[in-house]
């Protein structure tokens, strides 16, 4: 079990790392340029949720898990996503 997991982990995690960095840069670009409004706010927020899911799946290793624990991070992101979105929808 551990060996299979290790083989899965090594390469994908580096790839994920690069994606995380890229998304962060885009978020930063939006930030330093003070881009505002629904499109940009939800763009970076969507990136944030995606990054969270990647961290959960690949860094925390939840992708390898079967059953309810597989969805811990996803559920959290979903709830937080809904709550924050509903608060921001009308006010950005």
């Amino acid at each position, binding site marked *: *079990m*551990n*060996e*299979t*997991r*290790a*083989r899965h*982990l*090594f390469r994908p*995690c*580096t790839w994920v*790392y690069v994606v*995380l*960095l890229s998304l*962060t*840069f885009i*978020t*930063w670009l*939006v*930030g*330093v340029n*003070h881009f*505002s409004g629904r499109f*940009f*706010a939800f763009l*970076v*927020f969507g*990136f*944030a*949720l995606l*990054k*969270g899911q990647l*961290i*959960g799946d*690949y*860094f*925390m*290793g*939840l992708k*390898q*898990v*079967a*059953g309810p*624990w597989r969805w*811990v*991070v996803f559920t*959290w992101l979903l*709830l*937080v996503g809904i*709550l*924050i979105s509903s*608060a*921001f929808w*009308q*006010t*950005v």
Partner: protein
Amino acid sequence: MSETKKPRWPPGDLVIWIFIMAELLVFGVFFATYAFTRAHHVAQFDTYQLTLNRNAALINTLALITSSYFVVRAVAAIRADNSQACFRWLLAALAMGLLFLVVKGAEYHHHFSMGVNLGTNTFYMFYLSLTFFHFLHVVLGMIILLAVALKAHRGGYSAAEHTGVETGASYWHMVDLVWMILFPLVYVMR
């Protein structure tokens, strides 16, 4: 490949996952409260958000992501039974954590020298509370990683038994995960 049997449990000791869920819950509530409070004070939040340093936040986000990545490599190393590599990756991760603390500390120093505190206004109340609460989690996570690193250095883990590494790693990723939301929420979205 061997799709035979995925484990039912996440890596690390299950107790840490109960703790992680509790932490995520607290942060989640904190985030939602921030968002809904902002909706009532949009002008104030948008004004004072501009006083934050997005470059510092960028460095910190990169630091945490990199740190998390190093921790992933540390876990991979111990699964390959390489204690010393595991130790080195963890040290690298700790260095990134330290970078986070220094940058964040500089940000706090800037704000405090401007006379900002929890009572200044609602935005700063949230900014300071959220980031400081997270800051303390970085400190705690680093203490855990340090303990794990030292044990790895002593050869306390092996490919067969390294629950401790996975436990510490899971916690550290949670600290990272929370920051992924915090960064755009507090620094960017407007």
